[in-house]
């Protein structure tokens, strides 16, 4: 089974978010980048399936050279090889077009992604790729198993419940917890990752359909109003009469 796992390179969850150039650009200064947390679920599940059924796991990132440390990390966790589409990922539509081009070329059985990138919070690339390729996209899935060699069974979350879906290969799915326990690289993985192939390819055309023109930050809270624990019931009155939320 050939699995393609798409990973996004994102600011660490604890990063302070700032903007430069008159709030027109994200300030990368001092920001630590990680593999998008949800993509780690996709990657680990892909490796587990490969271990159980044979095959290969290829990781794909659409991004600039500064994403390579995290691509290497994915190789250290257990992917076999990697592809980086050398482009500034302008927007989700552009990224989806690049992923589609690579996926069509490689003939993968399964294209796994994270549910959502934690930087641009799009929750969209997987469904775009499914539509561009004309294959099912099951998102967000929290369970993924093979029923037989050509069919997978997934459980996906919907508001207020879940759906059980069976799809034929090939398909796209996006992962979220508790699909598996994300792995961290071990020493041996880190050593072998250095020699695993990382291919850099140029973008296959592609256009963006949106322009990011400006950023802003939410207004700061004015400060917490403390209520004495002995008089905790007072809080409920404040919520009704002052905050007007009850």
């Amino acid at each position: 089974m050939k699995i393609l796992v798409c990973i996004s390179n994102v600011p660490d969850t604890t990063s302070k978010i700032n903007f430069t150039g008159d709030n027109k650009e994200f300030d990368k200064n001092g920001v630590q980048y990680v593999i998008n947390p949800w993509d780690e679920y996709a990657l680990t599940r892909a490796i587990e399936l490969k271990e159980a059924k044979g095959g290969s796991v290829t990781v794909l990132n659409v991004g600039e050279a500064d994403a390579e440390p995290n691509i290497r990390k994915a190789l250290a966790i257990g992917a076999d090889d990697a592809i980086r589409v050398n482009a500034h990922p302008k927007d989700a539509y552009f990224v989806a077009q690049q992923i589609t081009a690579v996926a069509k070329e490689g003939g993968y059985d399964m294209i796994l992604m994270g549910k959502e990138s934690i930087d641009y919070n799009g929750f969209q690339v997987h469904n775009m790729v499914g539509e561009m390729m004309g294959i099912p996209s099951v998102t967000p899935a929290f369970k993924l198993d093979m029923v037989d060699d050509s069919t997978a069974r997934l459980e996906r979350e919907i508001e207020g419940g879940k759906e059980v879906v069976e799809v034929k290969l090939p398909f796209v799915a996006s992962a979220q917890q508790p699909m598996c326990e994300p792995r961290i690289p071990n020493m041996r993985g880190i050593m072998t990752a250095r020699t695993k192939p990382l291919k850099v390819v140029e973008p296959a055309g592609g256009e963006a359909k949106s322009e990011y023109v400006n950023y802003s930050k939410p207004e700061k809270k004015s400060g917490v109003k403390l209520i004495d624990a002995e008089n905790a019931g007072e809080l409920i009155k404040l919520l009704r009469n002052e905050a007007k939320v009850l």
Partner: protein
Amino acid sequence: MSVLVFVEGLNGEIKKSSLEAASYGSQVAQAMGTTATAVAIGDVHEEALAKLGEQGISKVLYDADDRLKQFVADAYVKVIAKAAQQESAKVLVFSNSNIGAAVGSKLAVRLNGSLATNVTELPKMDGGNFIVTRGVFSGKAFADVNLTSDVKIIAVKKNSTDIISNAGSTATVEKLSADLAESDFAAAPKETVMQDTDGGVLLPEAEIVVSGGRGMKGPENWHLIETLAKELGAATACSKPVSDIGWRPHHEHVGQTGITVSPNLYIAAGISGAIQHLAGVNSSKVIVVINKDPEAPFFKAADYGIVGDALEVLPKLIEAAKALDK
């Protein structure tokens, strides 16, 4: 040219998040000097559809095909694309739900449109621009995005739009049929299992959320969270470690790697307020924190706080909530 809103139903009624999307769509239509049409699928009563007039919708297209009672992406896309074509829709509005965002993303490809998900404000239209504001960096920032294609697709973040209600206005309801083929149902779910909310409120739709963390000590104390939630008409939620240990089900876990909520009121008991937790709740309008440690980081993000033992404070809140006239 018109604005098309996709509305989702649940048990015959229209979801609150879809009433918000309808209100958003009719305001966009008004600004553009046109009308807003809604498209509905599956499990909704016709009376509920006509009532969308209150949100400023003039017409509703309804596909009553029984097979659409459960969510089947390809079939939904086909129905909505047909409605969009029929109405010459230039702006399509969805709720930013798992269903709305999925269908919106696929339609962006099919209709060659620009998509913005997680949108928090009405568009600014001038000089040929169409700029929407969307939440980015997991609640830590907003971005203004210009949608450059002819067709614009917007998925509206829950609880970020006030619901309009022009009492008494009704929409006309027309049947729509998209001539669906068997193949459109190839990826139909085998089974759909809805959570038993026990008459309670669904977390993603909730206006009030009562949430517990590790400071609640154990599942045996959750009756306090549940009782307060019931008194306030709230949904219950929890922090990640709480669902990881199995005190609560995973679908209740909020935060960076769980679900994002933006209720009017979020009450957190025994939760430290780690940055990854805040990412899922920081767009709540009012935040209340109950924590025995006055240094807990959550107090910095809170509007109201009580420093104390949650196991003693919650019963007092329940008592006060019971005394409220509802």
